[in-house]
């Protein structure tokens, strides 16, 4: 008998960044069953981590109750990374790669990646550029069609201080000579980024370099709509039908792009009574996830 596990693990990415991860697996009668069962690699959202409220915190327990294992990783985008310079969007796919390698070394064979919010955009970037033989499909929750456009629209909506265009201008000056390779960087605050006040709840914090590679007009790899056509594995979008952060048309447009690119194994399901976090309606969300995993995983049926 393989007993239930809830293990904290640490391992390095290719460049040495230390990833902390939480493995949650269920009870299985044989070791083979454990490794044949699906496992979902979970990637958190903005300022997130594997204990952050909502999906990161709730989904692993809900999964394990239903026979699905999970592996939640804290990427370099976790915690305060975007405020102190470590959260470079383009480099975060090294963390996904390291997570997948770790799971394969452990013996897991049927891996899904679930990215929530920012994690969804990272997941698309990874899968558009990598074909991992053990990845059976990806789940994108609350996925923005483009992080730069999403940021620009939000900052304009709330009349942020400074404005999106002003940040862009300043970033070009601070990040000389080349934003990608420069050693020059600086923290900045955007007031009224998430709401109409100057209160801390409505601010956003970045360094110019983390912003440049995640939110600026030149953050090419964060423009999910421009790269998602490269994703060839099955894709499930789940989206809260009351999500006011990412509009419903965004995942709809991404589905269309995937279909046009020849990927027909794409499903979009709106989760009723949920906002940006689909686990606001856990029963419905779990049912959708299990149905879809069963559909894509022929070797192992979850009842």
């Amino acid at each position, binding site marked *: 008998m393989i007993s239930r596990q809830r293990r904290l693990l640490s391992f390095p990415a290719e460049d040495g960044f230390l990833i902390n991860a939480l493995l949650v697996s269920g009870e299985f009668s044989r070791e083979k069953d454990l490794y044949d069962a699906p496992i979902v690699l979970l990637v958190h959202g903005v300022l997130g*981590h594997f204990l952050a409220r909502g999906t990161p915190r709730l989904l692993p327990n809900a999964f394990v109750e239903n026979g699905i294992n999970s592996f939640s990783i804290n990427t370099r985008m976790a915690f305060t990374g975007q*405020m102190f*310079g470590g959260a470079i969007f383009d480099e975060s796919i090294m963390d996904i790669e390291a997570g997948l390698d770790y799971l394969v070394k452990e013996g897991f064979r049927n891996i899904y990646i679930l990215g929530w919010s920012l994690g969804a955009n990272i997941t698309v970037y990874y899968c558009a550029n990598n074909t991992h033989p053990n990845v059976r499909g990806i789940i994108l929750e609350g996925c923005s069609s483009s992080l730069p456009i999403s940021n620009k629209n939000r900052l304009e909506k709330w009349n942020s201080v400074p404005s999106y265009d002003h940040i862009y201008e300043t970033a070009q000056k601070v990040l000389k000579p080349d934003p990608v390779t420069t050693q020059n960087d600086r923290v*900045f*605050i955007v007031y009224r980024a998430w709401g109409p006040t100057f*209160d*801390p*709840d409505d601010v956003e914090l970045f360094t110019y370099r983390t912003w440049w590679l995640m939110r600026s007009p030149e953050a090419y790899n964060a423009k999910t709509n421009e790269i998602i056509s490269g994703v060839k594995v099955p894709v499930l979008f789940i989206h809260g039908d009351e999500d006011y952060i990412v509009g419903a048309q965004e995942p709809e447009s991404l589905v269309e792009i995937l279909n046009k690119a020849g990927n027909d194994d794409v499903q979009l399901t709106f989760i009723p009574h949920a906002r940006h976090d689909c686990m606001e309606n856990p029963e419905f969300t779990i049912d959708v996830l299990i149905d879809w995993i069963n559909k894509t995983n022929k070797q192992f049926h979850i009842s």
Partner: protein
Amino acid sequence: MEQELVSIPFGKSKIDGLYYNSTIHSEDKIKNDTAIIHVHGFLGNFLDGSQRFLPPILAEGGYSSLAINTRMANFGLFFGYGILNDTIPQIDRVVEYLIELGYKNIILSGYSLGTSIVLRYAALRSDPKNFPNLRGVITLAAPYSMPDSIRRRWNRLGSEPSYDEVFEEAKEIIKPSREGKGHDRTILIYKARGDSYRPEHTEIYTYRTWWYLAGPEADTAMGYKQIKEIKVPILLIQGWYDEIVKPEETHDLAQVALDAGNKDVSAFYVNAGHKFENKEEELGDIIVRWLDRRFKT
């Protein structure tokens, strides 16, 4: 050692922690009934620094640990809810949790900013009749006074804005409701931790979190005012090459505690910087020996 992620119910929320249960028992198979609570430093959490490396070393010595995230963990200081005094009920709950697990002797250990939390807690809970389980305090890199330490550092580095400028602005921004929510705002201090504008030399607060941690009226964060109230054994450990907290601050804190009548105050210096890098084992050995002399079953 067994390791377990725990979420301790606390009102409507939870306190997250990483529990390290030592499986090293005494020769007569009795489990050690002393446990250590570890409190993180500035922007820290239980996955980082001494919170992460000390518990396994202590577990080898027979001591279980619970490393916790308080309200001041991660970005609590940036978004307004990281107020030092608000961590007290959280620690009360963690102490209660460990007592429920069967531990009788609770030792509080804090690192850097966490030393302000544990000294404040132990000062408020110094009455042994009401708080008999709190049996000792360990500080790692403790500033004599967090506000003074920050003011000196900012003035030395020429921070932008200056300490006095932040104080003046804070007075305007958060009054008249210093105790209430007020109109708080997030602020950046460049050149606060080094002489450049780079992110690693920048500090981030809200006026309110700054007020209660670094402001000139932040008595709760002045270690010397708290330590003199503490009657349980105190162990202070300090890196000799620490550039954030000066070594003499530990000496001065120990002196205040001794002058106040505490008969069990120890201070150790380690050949290390603020993070005790490469001296993890040595740090652990000092703590285990100190614990053994007082609490070994």
